[in-house]
């Protein structure tokens, strides 16, 4: 823009440049000396300043994983890129660059302060991921549409905004508009918004804001509804009985059943169908309620189990902690005693004694752990048995209910067949009803055709019911096995961790003892 950036060669962000910057901005004095001695890893750097470097392209920043503050102002950057890895970034300064569009910020969910001052941005967007945004500086850009401000309404924490130097800021209504549409804003263009101003703005734009609010609320409530429905469905799925609280299964039986739909037009069939549907739905509802109840039961079982196991582990931990605390008290004393001891024989005796103490602690801790493992194993096995029984019972009962469905279907099939044959006979006799639909007529040619049609419909229905049953059974079983597996695996993991922890601790103690010995031998 008005800066003569051409006068200098554009530079590339490379390793050397970054190292230099890190070195310059690192710790000072004694700490700096240490830092130089050891070298600083990029991932330990929390804040980095790269201003006035004539950088054209953001690059090589992926190593700075933990960076929280990044200054890239006064460069000639044209595109926001290469920042995807810096997810901990809180503070980002990109002012005085040549950026034309906001982009590449979708991963920076922790960003609170964003400065894009003095760029070439004409539209505010792509900021959706920045839910924590508090300060946004967009002055000296080319934003020309007031509607951009409405976009900013989604940032609930936004308190400071600067837009001066944009085309929209020249409009008379600019301030009022911003104040009215962003009521939570405290500072606009580095000035505090006074209450009087807020009131005026509110009254001026009241109607349009109310409308906007109404629309937002509607969207919000719709979203919430959907969420609630989703949750409900999830709950049902967890109970393996989703969509069974209505005629969903029944309807699905007839969606692919061409013949069945045709046959429904036979006289007397529609009534039959209605009665069939009612009974079927009642059974479905039974399954559904039973499923939910069983789910509650399983949940309760699981909760009790978890609680008990947690308690046991907690108690065991307390015991372990107590042991260690006791040991440490003693340990401090004996360490001091060993240090003070001058006579060699005594010294060695004490060392041996201390080593014994450590071994004893190890034994005690390991015994505790083994005890817990045994106890838990017993409990887990018991739980496993119970939960498998529960699931088996559930499956059994559902199966019996499903069998009822099948019976209904068979019954319906027989009735339908009877009606069909009667109709066929009538047709063959020439005693035809006038109102028989045209697409039904081809079915009533001879006995085989109609038999086949009705049979096909029956088969489809049975298949649907079987499928639903199979799905339920497999899912329930797999849930059960998965649960049991996880519990076992978790227990094993826990045991491993604890054993490792104990070993680590004992090793540390032993090392300390060894070093003591060594130092004394040297002395």
């Amino acid at each position: 823009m008005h800066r003569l950036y051409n006068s200098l060669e554009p530079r590339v962000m490379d390793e050397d440049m970054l190292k230099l910057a890190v070195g310059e901005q690192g710790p000072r004095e004694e700490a700096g000396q240490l830092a130089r001695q050891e070298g600083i890893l990029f991932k330990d750097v929390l804040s980095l300043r790269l201003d006035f470097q004539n950088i054209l392209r953001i690059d090589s920043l992926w190593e700075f994983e933990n960076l929280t503050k990044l200054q890239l102002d006064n460069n000639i950057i044209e595109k926001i890129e290469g920042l995807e890895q810096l997810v901990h970034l809180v503070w980002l300064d990109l002012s005085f660059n040549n950026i034309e569009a906001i982009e590449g910020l979708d991963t920076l969910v922790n960003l609170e302060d964003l400065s894009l001052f003095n760029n070439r941005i004409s539209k505010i967007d792509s900021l959706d991921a920045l839910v924590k945004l508090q300060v946004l500086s967009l002055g000296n850009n080319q934003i020309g549409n007031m509607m951009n401000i409405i976009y900013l309404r989604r940032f609930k924490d936004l308190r400071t905004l600067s837009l001066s130097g944009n085309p929209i800021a020249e409009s008379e209504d600019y301030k009022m508009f911003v104040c009215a549409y962003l009521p939570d804003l405290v500072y606009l263009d580095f000035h505090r918004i006074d209450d009087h101003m807020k009131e005026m703005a509110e009254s001026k734009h009241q109607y349009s804001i109310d409308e906007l609010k109404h629309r937002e609320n509607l969207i919000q409530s719709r979203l919430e509804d959907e969420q609630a429905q989703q949750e409900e469905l999830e709950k049902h799925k967890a109970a393996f009985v989703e969509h069974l609280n209505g005629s969903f299964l029944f309807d699905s039986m007839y969606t692919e059943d061409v013949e069945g739909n045709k046959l429904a037009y036979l006289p007397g069939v529609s009534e039959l169908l209605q009665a069939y549907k009612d009974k079927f739905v009642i059974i479905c509802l039974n399954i559904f309620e039973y499923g939910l109840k069983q789910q509650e039961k399983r949940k309760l079982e699981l909760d009790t189990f978890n609680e008990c196991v947690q308690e046991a582990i907690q108690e065991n931990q307390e015991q372990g902690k107590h042991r260690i605390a006791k040991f440490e008290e003693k340990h401090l004393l004996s360490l001091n005693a060993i240090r003070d001891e001058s006579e060699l024989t005594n010294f060695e005796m004490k060392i041996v004694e201390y080593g014994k103490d450590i071994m004893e602690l190890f034994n005690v801790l390991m015994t505790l752990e083994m005890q817990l493992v045994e106890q838990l194993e017993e409990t887990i096995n018991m739980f496993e048995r119970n939960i498998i029984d529960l699931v088996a019972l559930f499956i059994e009962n559902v199966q019996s209910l499903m069998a009822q469905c099948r019976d209904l279907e068979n019954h319906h099939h027989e009735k339908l067949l009877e009606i069909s044959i009667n109709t066929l006979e009538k047709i063959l006799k020439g005693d035809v009803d006038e109102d028989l639909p045209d697409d039904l007529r081809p079915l009533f040619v001879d006995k085989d055709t109609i038999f086949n049609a009705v049979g096909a419909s029956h088969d489809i229905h049975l298949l649907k019911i079987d499928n639903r049953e199979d799905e339920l059974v497999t899912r329930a079983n797999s849930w059960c096995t998965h649960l049991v597996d996880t519990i076992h695996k978790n227990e094993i993991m826990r045991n491993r961790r604890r054993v490792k922890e104990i070993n680590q601790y004992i090793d540390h103690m032993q090392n300390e003892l060894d070093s003591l010995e060594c130092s004394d031998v040297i002395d």
Partner: protein
Amino acid sequence: MEVLKEKVEEEAAATEQAEVAERGEKLLRPLDARREEAPMTQEMLRDLEKKLSEIEIVVPEQPLTFTKDSIDISKLPLSYQSNTLKEEHLLQVADNFSRQYSHLCPDRVPLFLHPLNECEVPKFVSTTIRPTLMPYPELYNWDSCAQFVSDFLSMVPLPDPLKPPSHLYSSTTVLKHQKGNCFDFSTLLCSMLIGAGYDAYCINGYGSQDLCHMDLTRDVCPLTMKHKEMVREEEKVPSKKYAIKPPRDLSSRFEQEQEMKKQEEMKGQEEKQRREEEARLLEVEKAKIDPLHGLRVHSWVVVLSGKREVPESFFIDPFTARSYSTQDDHFLGIESLWNHKNYWINMQDCWNGCKDLIFDLGDPVRWEYLLLGTDKSHLSLTEEEDDGMNDDDDVENLGKEDEDKSFDMPPSWVEQIEISPEAFETRCPSGKKVIQYKRAKLEKWAPYLNSNGLVCRLTTYEDLECTKTLEIKEWYQNREDMLELKHINKSTGLNIDYFKPGHPQALRAHSYVSMQPEMDRVMEFYETARVDGLVKREETPSSMTEHYRGRSDFLSYRHVDFGPRVKKLSLNSAESNPRPMVKITERFSRNPKKPADEDVAERAFLIQEERIQLRYHCRDDHITASKREFLRRTEVDSKGNKIIMTPDMCISFEVEPMEHTKKLLYQYEAMMKLRNEEKLSRHQAWESELEVLEILKLQEEEDDAHTLAISIYDTKRNEKSKEYREAMERVMHEEHLRQVEAQLDYLAPFLAQLPPGNKLTRWQAMCIKDECLSDFKQRLIDKANLIQACFEKETQELQKKQQWYQENQVTLTAEDEDWYLSYCSQAMFRIRILEQRLNRHKELAPLKYLALEEKLHKDPRLVEFLKVFV
């Protein structure tokens, strides 16, 4: 029945005679008292008589008799001095009732129906009760009411411990003199309780010796009794389905049993010893048997269940304000009871004290009533049964027969009971009261009576004779430093002061042996009132421990160890030469925002060893915690460069080793931070020490010169507001005077001379004006003359004196000369003043005259006439 009726008529005819007879009977009462217990043998009677005579000597020794001489009868209202018609009628009814009663129950004591009041007028006992609701919210509940009565009145024993008194004074008189016997006590208490809505009754009955003499020396002081800890049994949680099984117990059961047996044996022996000890103690404490047991007349109050949510009937002893169950051993029998509406006689046998009595006043078999038609009739029996029983028992119909059914109790003759706020606050007579309990003495004072705010002191003794003090508890009120209770344990020398919220340093309790700094003490604080959240500070001569709660930096504990003080030559006070700190240990509670590995749980600064030890919090699922130890040595390496940081300066154990913590830079920064924090901790510890000194100083000052805080609502004591109020009143008064003066009509005397009713004529108006003016002129001249006369008199006298002085100058003594000189100067002063006044008068007189003239011109009554004239 018929016979009875006739008898009634007969007796009604000869009321006068009967009355006389009854009086006579009253005198014979001691006999009745003895007759009360029928199965007594002659020997016992004699024995009793003997003992009785022994006792009689003791009673008059009590100097606190409440004589009538001290009461000014003339000032009492009319209702005290005479009976209304209705009251007379009631007395007749009562007499009649009494006669029938003595006829039917000849072996019982005459009734206590109408003792004389302070004006020697017989008054029925029920009318002496004046139900009053006191204007003090404190007196709304029975316990505080009883406490007040027992505090406010001092006890006077009955003139004859075996008889009810001959006089029963009104509660107003009793309150005025602040003393009375048990009947006065219970009448007053009953009036207050009934006023507060309780179903309360006065009882005339028999009590134990302790009760009648208000002797609490064999009772344990209620204040010393420990509150029984409500031991709430932890509800056994039903063992959950998946609770783990405990590890198998491998110890021998036989050995356990043997151990148990041994212990039980030991316990049994101890128990036995203890029981023997207790028995011995009881023996000592047991009082000698009272020869008059069961004959001592006492009066107390019973509160029946039903009203004011009283769940169960109970007795209140008005002397001690204690409540007793109706089964208590102290109460040995009831003759009769009454409230402001009716009078009941107990027809139940009292062989077992009051234990078997049933307080169903509607049951005429058990309680014979005097007046019919009161609302007290919750008899549980059915009507038929009732009638059947009536036929058996002729006592039943005593009350019903002889009076018209609509007769009810006349209103009380007693004036409204009033207690002034001053009296209410002072409570005890002259503001002080002492009660002797078993092994304890309780002293009470009115607030503001003691200059240090002491209101109550409880002294507990080791022995029954009260010679060895065990501990002293002192309660304070209105202290500016909010001291509430001082607990001094004499055996250990430990003092504990308890404070109410509001102490400048938010002190809650302070226990100490000596007030010297750097000694053993424990201070507790109101942590919410303090910025630093300090809860408790414990001190020993070489350490100080502080506990905190609710701090934003999660500090919960700080322990400072001090070394011996280094002798300094220059200054040697505690402030300028603090003890060197050896070790500071600080503990922090878990900060949920930090991961456990970075959240320090305990850090110890070993100051002299230049060592810093850190222990981190334990992770939720771990049993070991990270540790780190910094050695702060500043060393120089072989080349002479200062070593900033070496790996052996930081020894650490990490539960889960992390990469960045291994770096020297990290360790260096951590150490630098810790060094700063060490300085801060040292400073805070030093400040704590200073604070202790300050608190001690404050307490000392407060003990030396105590000022009591006065509530702004306390209009009597708040001097400032009192002054202000008085000033306001004075101003108001002056204003009022001025207004009165302004309203003084200067024309009134002149207008009065004119014939009334006529309208003023112009001539008259002129006359009045002139007269008024001339009158005023005359007054001014008179005044001037008066001053002149005074002046001349003074001068003459002075001249005379001077002459006398000059004549006798030679013979005068020094005293006379002095006297003369002082007289001269005084006389000169007077003369000068008079002269000034005269001059002033001369100046002002014309002005005043003109002012009056002006005023007259403007006077609304004269103005129209004068205007025309002018």
